[in-house]
């Protein structure tokens, strides 16, 4: 396989992984309105858990002085299953602590803080998580049996397959009454409660579903790269994801996927390919700066994104006789990003 082909397969793989993260964040933020500024922490947990499930116990691994929890030496798919499960359990603990009757924006601040706390914790706790070095030497599935090119293609296919299954399940959920409940929660949590639905349960369901995608993405990531380090899980990563979801269209699966594609594959990869002669470390800074500008422009011009959310469709329209009236309504502009708005919120109490 030529270098170009390796590159293309790698692009497909990361495209699928980023797509997974985007639909996961969209489930939490786009659908249910949870401003999870610590999303990348969930991905990191999935990656770490898969990593330690795959490698052998410390001291028996030939990996020298690495320190880490676990080391089960499990094969695919058990290591990935463990990674996803660990992410969901972690997310469950997080929600049980942080979702205690907090307003959407308070929750956002709390999650930012928890995200930084975990990053500091991991960086400082060399004796548990091996500090900034993280873990290395995670074997990929079937890596020893396959030729290099076959393995790359397998991983690309595996990532695409997992993305497709995950997206299909999310698609079904978002069309069900549960999906309607997510959007209702995003609009007005107290109102959801006043309809006799437990908002905490709905919120947790959305959060855990998003965590499943995060766990899958992290797991795929570590199995492909073969290592895990804190450097890859900085808050800036969550930021690019938010930009992707908003650019593509929040609350819509294809929107999140499109946004992830445009931002990661076209913009970030494209600008890396341009080969601009810059000092090391400068290009990522310039890229993130531009992503920031993209995000501000989207918020200013089109907060609904490139592919705005659908209005829910029901079978058998009752109002077909009044065509002209309905057309007039259909022409009206869609309201901006959510109803979790200021004007009313500000005057409450």
């Amino acid at each position, binding site marked *: 396989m030529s270098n170009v082909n390796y590159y293309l397969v790698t692009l497909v793989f990361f495209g699928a992984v980023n797509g997974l993260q985007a639909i996961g964040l969209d489930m939490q933020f786009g659908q249910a309105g949870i401003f999870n500024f610590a999303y990348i922490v969930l991905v990191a947990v999935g990656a770490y858990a898969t990593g330690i499930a795959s490698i052998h116990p410390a001291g028996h691994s030939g990996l020298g002085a690495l320190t880490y929890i676990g080391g089960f030496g499990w094969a695919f798919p058990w290591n990935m299953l463990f990674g996803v499960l660990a992410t969901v359990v972690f997310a469950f603990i997080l929600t049980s602590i942080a979702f205690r009757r907090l307003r959407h924006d308070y929750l956002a601040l709390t999650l930012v803080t928890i995200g930084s706390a975990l990053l500091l914790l991991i960086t400082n706790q060399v004796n548990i998580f091996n500090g900034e070095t993280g873990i290395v030497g995670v074997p990929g599935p079937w890596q020893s049996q396959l030729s290099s090119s076959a393995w790359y293609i397998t991983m690309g296919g595996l990532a695409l397959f997992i993305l497709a299954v995950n997206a299909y*399940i999310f698609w*079904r*959920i978002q069309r*069900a*009454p*549960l*999906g*309607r*409940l997510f*959007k*209702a929660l995003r*609009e*007005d949590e*107290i*109102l*959801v*409660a*006043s*309809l*006799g*639905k*437990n*908002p905490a349960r709905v919120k947790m*369901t959305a959060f855990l*579903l998003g965590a499943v995608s995060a766990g899958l993405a992290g797991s795929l990531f570590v199995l492909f790269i073969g290592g895990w380090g804190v450097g890859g899980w900085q808050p800036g990563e969550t930021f690019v994801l938010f930009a992707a979801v908003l650019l593509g269209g929040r609350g819509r699966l294809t929107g999140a996927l499109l946004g992830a594609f445009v931002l990661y594959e076209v913009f970030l990869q494209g600008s890396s390919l341009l080969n601009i002669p810059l000092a090391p470390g400068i290009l990522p800074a310039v890229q993130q700066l531009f992503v920031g500008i993209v995000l501000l422009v989207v918020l200013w011009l089109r907060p609904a994104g490139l592919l705005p*959310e659908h*209005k*829910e469709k*029901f*079978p*058998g*329209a*009752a*109002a077909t006789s*009044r065509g002209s*009236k*309905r057309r007039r*309504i*259909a022409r*009206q502009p*869609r*309201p901006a990003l*959510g*109803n979790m*708005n200021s004007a*009313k919120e500000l*005057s409450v109490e």
Partner: protein
Amino acid sequence: MSSNEVLPQGSIRVENLSKSFGGVSAVSDVSLSVPAGTFYGIIGPNGSGKSTLLDCISGVHTSYGGRVHFEDTDISGMALHKIASLGMLRTFQVSRLFENMSVLSNVMVAAPEQEGEGLFSAISGSWRKSQAGHLTRARSLIDHYELTRVEEAYASELSGGQRRLLELARLLMMRPRAVLLDEPFAGVSPVNRARLLKQLHSFSEAGITVLMVEHRLELVEELCDKVGVMAEGKIIAEGAMSDLRQDRAVLSAYLGEFHKDALRM
């Protein structure tokens, strides 16, 4: 009309309810009883604690002194969603709708014990079978409230009166036995007021217990079997509106706001 299915139960009993915010008392030692199927009104000037009282009864506030009973259940300190799922619902002073959802979706959200709200039935798609029933009911309610024309419009596009009607449709979708209405006529134009009045009459005809906070006396008189007057967090008088109007103590206590209203009538 589907609201006829509602059984005539839903008594509300409040005993010695008190609530304060950071040391400032908002409601103090309020007791009242709303028998099943009656229409009870609470009047009083702004800041007299009417809305806070409603917030406590409905479970928006969960920490307060005193006890609240709904039918035979002690619901003191119970959360809003639990109380609502028991069959006692509320509306808000500023009409609250899911603005970015269609009128029909707004009503469909409220369908009680809907299949497909759990994760597994949502994925399996088994909810589709029961969907048709909810949809028929939602559409008949929407039709009853003359909202069919705007069924697919976003809730944010409705007029003030339509918003109130949609709130009522959503309320009835849940088959309540008791409802707490917080100033249901706020933001409704005089033209639509008669329409809304008629719909509220049909609540009591259907046997639903109603506890309503409202400051327009003519509407209270028109609707309510019994009226409680609140001032400074207490109920200072109770009775039929026609009797209360004669009550000089009530009038003199509220020369400000009440006097104006009395003149307007």
